């Protein structure tokens, strides 16, 4: 198995952090754009770029409520996104097993 087995949409540092952070929420929960930005420590531009990529793959869903200064954008992991992250985690574990002798992983 090679790194090609890892989903390229997720296998980027910022998007991986985004996916893991959103996966920490229970099913049915959303996180506001500003809180997510605060937690991931990305500029708004970078965050939007990565969210658009994840949204394009169907892994996250964004919803905007209100308008003007009261506008709030919420972000949530979709069911497909959660499944994709599970698949990514499994593939990553198998790759780690292959590169690290048993018992040396932390």
């Amino acid at each position: 198995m090679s790194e090609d087995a890892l989903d390229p949409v997720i296998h980027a540092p910022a998007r991986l952090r985004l996916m893991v952070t959103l996966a920490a929420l229970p099913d049915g929960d959303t996180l506001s754009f500003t809180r997510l930005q605060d937690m991931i420590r990305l500029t708004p531009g970078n965050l939007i770029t990565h969210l658009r990529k994840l949204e394009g793959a169907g892994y996250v869903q964004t919803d905007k409520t209100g308008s003007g200064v009261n506008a709030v954008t919420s972000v949530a992991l979709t069911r497909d996104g959660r499944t994709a992250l599970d698949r990514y985690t499994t593939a990553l574990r198998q790759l780690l097993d292959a590169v690290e002798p048993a018992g040396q992983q932390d």
Partner: protein
Amino acid sequence: MREVGGTAVDQDGRATDEDGTAMDEEPDEATRMDVRDAAAIMREAGEHARLELTVNRPAIFMSWSLVYLLGYGLMWLSVRDQHPYTAPQGWAIALLVVLAAMALAVTAALTDRATSGVGGTSAMRRRVYWLSLAVGLIGVYIMQPMLSHAGASRDVIGVFSASSPLLIAGVVLVAGTAAWLNWYAFGLGVWLIAVAACSGFAGPVGVWAVIGLAVGVPFLAMGVVSLARGRR
């Protein structure tokens, strides 16, 4: 030009500054990441998210342990020499109210810090949970003058005023398990109900000491143990 999360973005979805100039973007495809890096990022991001999104329970347990150990303790001190029992003294009631208000403020601040920006099902459950508790407590405080009006003795009013808020808190915690599936909260709720139900046997004076110790000590222990384990 449109807005996402209060930030102006151009047609390509890039964030723009006041002049409409596209802001920076990370060329993440060019950022190589091997499997060890990915595993480290997952661990770090998962732990960071857990810390950020979890309410700091040790501080909440400890603040409520103060309410029961100190507040209920002072109530007991204010009534222990009353023969026959009349009612807790004003200064003790005032201190208990202040301590409870402080614990409530700590609980609200820490909960708000962890759940700020979190919406959806959990936010709705939280609102229903707090509303249930508030409605229940308002109900028991309305009942007290009703009981008095119906001819209940001072002893009965004394036992009721000490134990009924605990009964409501216990029932709300137990019922909340249906939504949260948190068995620690269920166990705590059952304990609160048991203490509220049995403490009345100590009478209108002893009930304050029994509840103060039976609830305050476990709360303090849970706070210390959670803190020692580094758990939130």
